[in-house]
């Protein structure tokens, strides 16, 4: 596999990908996606949110889950960072606390894929505005 170095390489590689149908058309149905938000304020970053975010990205790619991973700010649960909020289509958001790489994989395996709740869920007493 050749290395990608320029925008042209990137363009070519993208076309190859599209031909092998690896790219999902996400923008068409955003409401059908699992939304994963990683809290990335100072508190989250300092306790390892970036590792968690990378692990989540890696995992949903491996499992081929239609999901988007985004960042959010601090929700006031600094003591429980890193926190991850998962919103499955048609479900209320669920916030998981003390997430590390292992827990991130557990969230994907148990909650996202099998609807099973796991330890460490924070009570959702806030509303997104």
């Amino acid at each position: 596999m050749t290395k990608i170095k320029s925008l042209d390489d990137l363009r070519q590689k993208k076309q190859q990908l599209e031909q092998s149908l690896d790219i999902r058309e996400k923008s068409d149905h955003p409401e059908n996606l699992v939304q994963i938000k990683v809290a990335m304020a100072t508190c989250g970053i300092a306790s390892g949110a970036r590792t968690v975010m990378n692990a989540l990205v890696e995992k949903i790619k491996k499992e081929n889950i239609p999901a988007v991973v985004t960042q959010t700010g601090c929700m006031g649960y600094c003591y429980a960072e890193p926190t991850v909020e998962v919103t499955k289509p048609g479900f209320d958001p669920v916030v998981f606390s003390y997430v590390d790489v292992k827990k991130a994989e557990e969230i994907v395996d148990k909650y996202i894929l099998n609807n099973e709740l796991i330890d460490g869920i924070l009570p959702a007493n806030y509303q997104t505005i």
Partner: protein
Amino acid sequence: MNDLALHLLDIVQNSLGAGATFIAVHIDENPRNNTLSMSVEDNGCGMNEEQLQKLSDPFFTSRTTRRVGLGVPLLRQTAEQSGGNLEVVSQPGKGTCLKACFQYDHLDRPPLGDVANAMVLMISANTGVDFAYRYTYNGKSYEISTLQLKDALGDTPLNDLYIMEMIEEMIKENQNDLKVCQIE
């Protein structure tokens, strides 16, 4: 914070909080002059004099979820303990420019960390915001912006996982090249 890339993620979060639509990040590594600097410039809502003065006060924050704000004070501490400084210039309504300088070979300077990965995470998590990234090593630069990326990729979203991986690889390759070309 273990490395400077984590500080970068944190500072950019401030820019996003200020409603920025364009954020320019510049990392300037210059072992020859023994300096390392990191700057973040945004077009967010900016800060007034009073807010600027209180910026390094850990008990000042514009957020309502909690009463402490450690992002900028931590970065200032890191910069000052490694023989550098932190400058913030801001104009209400126009935007903010933050620049942290470090002494390159200072024992207390944290490693730069994985900036390419940090950039890709920020770009993919905030598709509505445009980013520009410039990496300079001993005066030679590599530049990339989301405008160029969007142009190259057409309507493929930047937060596609395979695309993210490709962009990260591209940034890393080019950064390595800048370094390799200059081994003396």
